């Protein structure tokens, strides 16, 4: 029975792994550089696996979620800075996800965009309020599995597999190094977006993981995000096979969905759009809760995704307010795909404030007792902290230099 539960969790994770940031950056990277950036995706996936495992272990052993530990470890002032930056980035991401959702609905229904924004927002509100969270996870997780159609599409497009293989070998592009670096930063930022670890650790605390669940934590992190990474590869391969050299930049979600239609016809298009719909909605919900978790955990409020709204009133009001705020921003007509790029780049800047405290806590014996980081976790943890700091420092300059990837 436990194996079944693990499998369910993994399936939900795959469906939930790809959000609008991954979608946009992986396909765009494929359209611009073909398969050459596949190795960067691998780095991103390993990074999120390493740090999710750490967060999950912190939750299981100390009973604390990330922001609890952040405030305790680095203090009020630095914690407040981390909180503010996390909230800003979170709100941008949430806005982009809702906009993406509205576009999806438009492609499926043909109804006007503005109306669909409202429907999307109200729909999310109703689902999150009335539906028990276990079901929310299942619905959006499995729905997101429709994204696997892109994996099928990738194969059916008969990419040059030799070139694909070559893309997994790290190498630096010499013709447009700045643009290449921009996409590398974007892919890593999209793979390691902060809300993912906040959400994962909060879930671990709510499910009352203990030391006996450390194995489950590792499996969840590795297989869930690993297979999710596999979906990212598919997206980049589709982007490379279809759009490279065609002068098509996948600025529209419709163009991305084409990636499934061209090789698989109408059914591919439908599955692709449904997959994107569920993946992006699921991500929107995760992002929304992440924002509420961060505030509640920083301030010591009652919180929880499985609680009745009456059990955590301030927490509930927080996520409703965040949703309304994001809706408001989407209503101003901002382009969700453009906003996604900004959200990913700013996420990249916020990565150090997210991951450094996690690393500190995971090594602290007063929290972790005998379960502090082993050698592998520490070596990889430090390597990624270095990577993250490089990304954080270079993200905004690269964004400016490449004119947000247009160049």
């Amino acid at each position, binding site marked *: 029975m436990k194996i079944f539960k693990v499998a369910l969790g993994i399936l939900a994770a795959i469906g939930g792994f790809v959000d609008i940031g991954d979608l946009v950056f992986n396909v765009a990277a494929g359209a611009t550089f073909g398969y050459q950036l596949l190795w960067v995706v691998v780095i991103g996936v390993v990074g999120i696996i390493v740090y999710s495992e750490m967060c999950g272990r912190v939750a299981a052993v100390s009973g604390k979620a990330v922001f609890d530990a952040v405030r305790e470890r680095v203090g009020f002032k630095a914690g407040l800075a981390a909180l503010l930056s996390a909230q800003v980035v979170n709100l941008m991401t949430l806005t982009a996800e809702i906009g993406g959702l509205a576009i999806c609905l438009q492609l499926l229904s043909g109804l006007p965009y503005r109306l669909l924004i409202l429907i999307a927002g109200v729909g999310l509100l109703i689902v999150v309020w009335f539906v028990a969270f276990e079901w929310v996870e299942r619905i959006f997780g499995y729905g997101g599995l429709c994204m696997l159609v892109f994996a099928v599409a990738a194969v059916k497009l008969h990419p040059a597999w030799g070139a694909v293989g070559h893309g997994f070998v790290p190498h630096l592009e010499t013709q447009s190094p700045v643009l290449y670096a921009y996409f590398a930063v974007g892919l890593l930022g999209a793979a390691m977006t902060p809300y993912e670890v906040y959400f994962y650790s909060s879930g671990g605390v709510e499910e009352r993981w203990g030391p006996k669940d450390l194995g489950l934590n590792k499996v969840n992190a590795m297989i869930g995000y690993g297979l999710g990474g596999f979906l990212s590869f598919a997206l980049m391969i589709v982007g490379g096979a279809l759009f490279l050299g065609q002068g098509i930049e996948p600025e529209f979600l419709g163009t991305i969905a084409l990636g499934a239609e061209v090789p698989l016809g109408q059914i591919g298009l439908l599955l692709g759009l449904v997959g994107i719909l569920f993946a992006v909605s699921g991500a929107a919900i995760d992002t929304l809760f992440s924002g509420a978790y961060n505030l509640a955990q920083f301030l010591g409020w009652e919180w929880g995704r499985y609680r009745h709204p009456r059990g955590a009133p301030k927490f509930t009001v927080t996520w409703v307010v965040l949703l309304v705020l994001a809706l408001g921003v989407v209503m101003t007509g901002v382009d969700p795909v453009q906003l996604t790029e900004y959200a990913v780049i700013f996420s990249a800047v916020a990565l150090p404030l997210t991951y450094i405290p996690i690393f*500190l806590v995971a090594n602290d014996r007063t929290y972790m007792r005998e379960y502090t980081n082993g050698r592998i976790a520490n070596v990889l943890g430090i390597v990624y902290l270095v990577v993250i700091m490089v990304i954080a420092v270079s993200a905004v300059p690269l964004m400016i230099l490449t004119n947000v990837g247009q160049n």
Partner: protein
Amino acid sequence: MRTFSSIVGRVVETESGRRLGRCHDMRAVLGQGIPRVEELIVGRGGLLEHFGIGTPKAHSPNAVPWEAVLRIEGDRVVVRDGTELV
């Protein structure tokens, strides 16, 4: 009444002006009733401890006993001459 945050962060120096470091924390003894502050954790080593790097030992090498404190004024904590980081 003083607050913890109003003492921590101040520079700790001796009466003759020798700077020992910045106060980063306080160690208190939990007895039967009210906890009593035993020492101030001071200096750069103290900062590392505050961030949880390295295990705090029973008598950290970066502590100043509370008895050595003469007065708290301005933005400093003034301690008796001859106080060394223990």
